[in-house]
């Protein structure tokens, strides 16, 4: 009976999984476009160029992001601000800003490098195009509008969950202390309009405390 017993054991596993699946207790796939997975805070998605709450652009055209990008996918050209009608609070602003999404590896280094938090990431990842030209995101598609809403290249895309574009960049918040525990839990960035939650990540004590209370 040993051999059959072992077969039955295996059959029990698959059969048990089947029962659990049918009863809905355990299911690992989802009906994707209808049911979206909730993404974690630090998710690396499509880039966005931020503004200050007063409508000014954050980008100052310093090209740090282009310099640090290991995939060479960012192209920035700065231009002096018109003093009467400034685009950004600094001397210069990002006159040309292009991100080649076909090259981008979503490592997040540009977000870490930007000194003014101008470029951050959203949670949107449905960026497929039928055309290489469309994969090069320009200033127009990257820059949020003055109310803080981010444009989508294909606003009618049935697959895209546009609310993902409003998520605040968790990676910026996570890397802001740069490894110094003492800096955790502080707001180290300037405000941005729009619905994202820009409160900082908690300090280490807070994290551990939260885990333990949730345990109990």
């Amino acid at each position: 009976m040993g051999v059959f017993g072992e077969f039955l054991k295996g059959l029990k596993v698959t059969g048990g999984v089947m029962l659990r699946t049918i009863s809905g207790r355990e299911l690992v796939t989802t009906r994707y476009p209808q049911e979206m997975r909730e993404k974690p805070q630090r998710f690396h998605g499509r880039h966005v160029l931020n503004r200050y709450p007063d409508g000014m652009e954050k980008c100052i055209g310093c090209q740090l992001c282009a310099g640090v990008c290991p995939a060479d996918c960012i192209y920035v050209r700065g231009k002096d601000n018109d003093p009467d009608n400034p685009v950004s609070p600094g001397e210069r602003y990002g006159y040309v800003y292009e991100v080649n999404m076909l090259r981008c590896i979503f490592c997040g280094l540009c977000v870490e490098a930007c000194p003014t938090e101008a470029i951050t990431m959203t949670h949107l990842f449905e960026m497929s195009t039928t055309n290489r030209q469309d994969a090069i995101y320009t200033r127009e598609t990257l820059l949020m509008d003055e109310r803080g809403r981010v444009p989508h290249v294909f606003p009618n895309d049935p697959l895209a969950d546009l609310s993902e574009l409003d998520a605040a960049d968790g990676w910026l918040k996570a890397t802001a202390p740069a490894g110094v525990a003492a800096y955790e839990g502080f707001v180290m960035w300037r405000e941005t309009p729009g619905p994202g939650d820009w409160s900082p990540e908690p300090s280490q004590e807070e994290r551990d405390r939260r885990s333990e209370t949730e345990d109990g």
Partner: protein
Amino acid sequence: MTEDKRTDTIDIWVAGTEEPEFQPTFEGEQEIGPEETGGRLAEQYGSVVDDDYLFDDEVSEDERMVINMGPQHPSTHGVLRLQIELEGEVIRRTKPIIGYLHTGMEKTAEQLTFGQGTTNVTRMDYLSPFHGELAFSLATEKLLGIEVPPRAAAIRVLMTELNRITSHLVALATGGMDIGAISMMIYGFRERESILAFFEKTTGLRMNHNYIRPGGVAADLPAGWKDDVAAILAEMPRRVREYDDLLQYNPVWLARTKGVGVITAEEAVAYSITGPTLRATGVDWDLRKVFPYSGIDQYEFEVVTGENGDVYDRYRVRVDEIAESLKIVSQVMDTMPKGDYRIPDRKITPPPRARIDESMEALIHHFKLFTEGFKVPPGETYAAVESPRGELGCYLVSDGGPKPYRMHTRAPSFYNLQGLPIAMADSLMADTIATIASLDPVMGDVDR
């Protein structure tokens, strides 16, 4: 068809022109290796290891068939190509041919700064990205002569050990799949998914994280990480028992894996095979014990070894290593130190974001680090970690600039793959698949 004609024929057909006459390839004429070695495959491959391959003069040429398995084959784990000399269904000789996924990453590393380098090395062995990052970071830190803070080291161990579990799960899943247990495929990936979700929560990415960097780790663990890790620790043993029920004692599984694809301890050592493949032969060699890194020696765990070096033992070693890794993870979770998680050296780590606006010096450091990168003293070094596939080493040469002069990776898959011809000789066609799956090569790691 003479030799000359074959080489002269260029089979390129431009659309719109007349199609050239069909030139069949005579794969039987392709050579796998000289036959005169009289059974010493070792000599063909420059080693003194005796192999059980036997060239039988009595068997005619007609009974032999050379087939090309891959690079487009469902179970060569990527784009491995095997030239196999078959006699009926029995494999007589095998020649692995690699290079179909050559991406020039080692060369690319010379164009990237040490800070950017982790985005590159993480893509080599895409199933264990943290180990690649860790090896590169350890080598860089060795050249710099720095020591990372304890929290960073602990996080590194946590992540790499979890990564070992995910990698072994993929090995089990694809190994099961290749032998025909199709449910194992989904089950392995199902559990891997729960760990990948934790990775994603921590690093923002499921693979190729760019998280472990020279000087520490990029970000602190996310809020609630203990709950996630505790959930993984609670869930995994139950799941592993489920695999055991499904495969461990299943007579078909045992018959397919026991005594198949045997590599002896001597052969494994001679071919510098490492990792579970080596340990399955009974050699007690684990870099975590012999050359501990990142403070892994402060955690208690066993080195899992097998006995026979066959596919079954490799499978078994992997399953048991999952348990050992879980042990380490649970210890790390309990003893996670507090404090900084990147070295507070402003020449290596950029300043906290708040400091940019306050301090001119911080701003300059920020700009310097993200444009030029940090400079590394000249010299060469080698640092290795125990990746899920074996010794993953990084050899770095610096000429004093911000970019490596040369980077070479000792890729475990590449060395393990050399054991394939000896493991496969005189086995059946179906065993090929089991053997490849059990060596668990990652072609990105092999070709780099």
